[in-house]
C-alpha cells in the first residue's frame, strides 16, 4: 500500500495540470502542437522510459503467447521428475522444460507464463479500479464542493485510516481465497489516493473558463464532470495509474507469501517466487530465479515508464 504512494509528490506540485494547460495554450499559438503530441515527444526522448516500454511490451507478449511455446500444460505433473528436481528437473532445452520444473514436478516455463499473466492482470485491475472509481469520486467531490465535498473526503479519510493489509488478510482468511476476493481487496485500497489527487486537480480545473462556459450554458453537472473535468484529469491519472500498477503487483506478492494469494492450480509471480524461496537452500535455485527475473524486469519497466510519463506530462521536472 505504502509503496504506491511514493509519488505523491506529484500532488504537491501546485497544479501541474494547470501549468500544462497554460504552457500548451501558448505553445498552441506558436507551434501548433497539442499537449499530447508534446508529451509524446518528451516521452520518446527519455531513453530509460522507452526501454521500459519495450520491456513491458515483451513481457506482455510473453504472458499472452508464451503458452504457445511451452511444451507442457501448466498443470501437468511430470512424475518421472518428481522428487528428483535437483538433478532431473533442471532447466534444459532437450526435456522441453526451458525453465526446469517446480517443486511439484510441473513445467516452470508454462507456470511462469501463467504467473506473469496473472500478476499483470492483478496490477491492471487494481489500477483500473483506482482510475475509474477514484477519478469519478474525486472529480465529483471536487466539482460539487461544499458540504458534499467535505463529507465525501472525510469518508476517504476514514477509509485511509483502516489498516487494509490486516483487513484484507482477514477477508481472505474468512471468505476463502479467490481471485475475486483479492481483486475486491486490492480495488478497495487502490482508489483512495487517486480520489484525493483527482479532487485536488478538479478544484483547479473548476475555475477554468471552459467549465464556467459549460455551466453558463446549462450543461448538467454529471455531464460537465464526464465531458469536461475528467478528460482534463487524464494526464495526472495516467501517471499515477502507471505508478500504481507495480505497487499492486508487489502487494499481491506479499499476500501470496502469506499463502493467501492466487490459489492452485493458478499461480502468480509472487506465489512462484515464494515457492522458489522456500527451496532456496535445496539446490534448485532456478525455481526462484526465473520468476524473480520476470517480476523484477516487469517492475523496473513499469517504474521507468511511470517516471517517463510523469516527466513528459509534467514539464516542471524537465
Amino acid at each position: 500500500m505504502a509503496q504506491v504512494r511514493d509519488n505523491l509528490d506529484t500532488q504537491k506540485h501546485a497544479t501541474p495540470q494547470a501549468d500544462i494547460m497554460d504552457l500548451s495554450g501558448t505553445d498552441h499559438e506558436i507551434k501548433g502542437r497539442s499537449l499530447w503530441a508534446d508529451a509524446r515527444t518528451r516521452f520518446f526522448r527519455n531513453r530509460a522510459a522507452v526501454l521500459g516500454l519495450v520491456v513491458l511490451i515483451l513481457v506482455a507478449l510473453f504472458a499472452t503467447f508464451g503458452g504457445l511455446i511451452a511444451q507442457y500444460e501448466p498443470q501437468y505433473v511430470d512424475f518421472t521428475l518428481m522428487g528428483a528436481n535437483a538433478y532431473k528437473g533442471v532447466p534444459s532445452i532437450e526435456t522441453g522444460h526451458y525453465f526446469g520444473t517446480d517443486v511439484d514436478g510441473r513445467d516452470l516455463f508454462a507456470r511462469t507464463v501463467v504467473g506473469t499473466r496473472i500478476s499483470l492482470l492483478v496490477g491492471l485491475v487494481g489500477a483500473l479500479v483506482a482510475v475509474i472509481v477514484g477519478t469519478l469520486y474525486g472529480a465529483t467531490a471536487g466539482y460539487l464542493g461544499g458540504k458534499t465535498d467535505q463529507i465525501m473526503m472525510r469518508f476517504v479519510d476514514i477509509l485511509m485510516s483502516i489498516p487494509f493489509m490486516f483487513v484484507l488478510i482477514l477477508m481472505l482468511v474468512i471468505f476463502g481465497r479467490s481471485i475475486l476476493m483479492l481483486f475486491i481487496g486490492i480495488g478497495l485500497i487502490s482508489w483512495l489516493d487517486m480520489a484525493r489527487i483527482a479532487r485536488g486537480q478538479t478544484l483547479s480545473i473548476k475555475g477554468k473558463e471552459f467549465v464556467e462556459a459549460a455551466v453558463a450554458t446549462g450543461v448538467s453537472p454529471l455531464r460537465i464532470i464526464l465531458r469536461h473535468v475528467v478528460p482534463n484529469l487524464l494526464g495526472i491519472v495516467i501517471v499515477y495509474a502507471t505508478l500504481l500498477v507495480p505497487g499492486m503487483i508487489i502487494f499481491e506478492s506479499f499476500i501470496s507469501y502469506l499463502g493467501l494469494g492466487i490459489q492452485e492450480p493458478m499461480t502468480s509471480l509472487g506465489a512462484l517466487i515464494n515457492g522458489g524461496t522456500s527451496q532456496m537452500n535445496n539446490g534448485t535455485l532456478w525455481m526462484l530465479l526465473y520468476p524473480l527475473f520476470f517480476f523484477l524486469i516487469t517492475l523496473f519497466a513499469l517504474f521507468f515508464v511511470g517516471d517517463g510519463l510523469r516527466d513528459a506530462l509534467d514539464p516542471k521536472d524537465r
Partner: protein
Amino acid sequence: MTLRRTLLSGTAAALVAMAGSAAFAQDMAGPNGEQLAENQTFTYRVLDEFPSIDPNLIEDVEGSAIGRNLFEGLMNQDSEGNVVPGVATGYEVSDDGLTYTFNLRPEAMWSNGEPVTAQDFVYSWQRAADPATASEYQWYMGLMAIENVDAVMAGEMDPSELGVTAVDDHTLEVRLTQALPYFPQMVTHTTTFPVPQSVIEEHGDAWTQPGNMVGNGAYVLEERVPQERIVLTKNENYWDAENVYLDTVTALIINDENQALTRYLAGELDQTDMPAGQFPRLSEEYPTEAISVPNLCTYYYNVNLTDAGLPALQEASVREALSLAIDRDVIVDSVLAGGQVPAFSLTHWATAGFEVPESDVMSMTQEERNARAQELMAEAGYGTDGEPLEIEILYNTSDAHRSVAVAIGQMWQQTLGVTTTLANQEWQTFLTTRGEKQYPGVARAGWCADYNEASSFLDIMQSDSGYNDSGFASEEYDSLMAEARTAEDPLPLYQQAEEIIMAEHPILPIYFYSTVFMLDDTIKGWPLENAQDNWYAKDLYRVAGE
C-alpha cells in the same frame, strides 16, 4: 549443586553463543557411560505459540511436550512407548477391570518443595472435567470412562462426585464405568497430570506465568516470551533430579520451516522439523542428523457418502478405482520423500498388537492396479469413455497437502480420465466444511492415535463417531467394534472391521506418517522407537563432540 546451577543458568542466557562457555573440570558421564559435553542445553523449534501450558488445558502436540517436562503424570512412557512408573510406582487393577489403585512415590515433590499427594491428582482431574474450566480436552476425561464423568461435564453433578478419590496421601483410587485395558497408557497424557491447587487458587489464570508456575516435572518454567521462546531449567526438587542431564531446554517459536532449517544449519537449533521433500538431500548431506521414524498417524481422503456427495462416488467400484489409481509409491518416494509408508488400511501398520489384514491390492504392481482401476471405471460407465467425472479435492491450506493433491489429481487425470479441481480452505473453515460433510468430492484427513491401540484408529469410522467425515454407516462395523471392546482377543475383530473399510472404500488411505526431523548428533536419548513421538527432556543428554 546450587553454585553449579546458577552458573549454568547464567551461561544459558547466552545460549546462542554457547560453544565456548566456561569450562568445568568435572567428569560427567551419561546413562551409558558416555563422555558428556559441558554444554547441557537443548534448543528446538516449534511452529506456533503454545495455546496453553496448563496441563488441564493443553490441546496440541507441542504443548504436550512442554507439559511432560514441567509436570509428571502417574505413568510415563519409555523410549519405546511402553508404560513405566512416573509419580506412581505401580498400580493394581480389580478383577473386573473397573477399579485402578495407583501407589504414589513419597519422595515426589513440587518445585516449591511441597510433596505431591494423591489429592493433587484428584483436584486436577476434577478441574479438567469441571465445565467451569472449559477445557477443550475435557472430552479426554470422558474417554477415560471415569465414574460420573459425563454428568460432571454436563454440569449436572458436582465435580467432587467424580470417580477418583485419594485413599491416603500416596494412594489414588480410580473407578471406571467400563474396563479399558489401555487405561494405564491413558494416564501418560498431559490432561491427567497433577496441578498445584494452592498455586492456582492464589494466582488464578496467571498461574502459568514464569515465577508463579509450580510443577512436579523435571524442569521449571524460567522464561516465556510469546511467539518467541520458552525456556525451561532443571528442577532441583524433582525426585529423580540426579538422573536429569540437561540444564536448560529452550523452544524457539519459528513459523517458517525453511527459516528454521537455515537456523538449524547455522547451529542455532538442536532439533527442527524438516520441510517436505527435503529428506533425501539432507540425509545425504547430514546422514547422522536427518532422521525419519514412523509416527502413528494415517493420511487419507474421506469420500463423501452423504447426499451432498457426487452420485458417482456412492458406487463402491468407483471409489475402489480411485483408490487403485493412486500411485502411493510416487507420493511417498517423490512427493514427500521422508520415509512415509504407502497405506492401504486405516490402522497404522506399527500399531501395537495389530496386523494389517492381507489383501490382493498390496501385492499388485501399480500397472496392474491401474489396469484394474480402468476396468472398474469403464464398468461403472465413467471416465475416459464414459460419463465425464469431475472430483473436487478439498484440503486444508499447506504446501505438503497441496503437493499430494496436485499429484493425485494428475494420477486420476492421467489414468482414469477423471478431472479434478483443487480447493483449499483455512483450517477452521476446513474443519467446519468437512465436519458438516459439505464437500462434493473427497476431503483430506489425517488421524493420529490417541493411544497405541487399533481401536484408536478404527473407532473413528463408527457411524456415531465425530470424526467420521465420510458419513460411512455400517451396522456390521459398529457391532464388530462394540464386541471388540470387551473381547479377550480383539485382534480378529479389528481385522474384520478393517476388511470392511478395505472393501467399501469410504476412505482412500494414502500413506502412514513418519516424523521427519533434523537432530544434532550430540543429542542422545531421543525416543526414536516411540511411535507417538512422546519425548521427555529428562531422558535427553548431550555427549561431548569429538
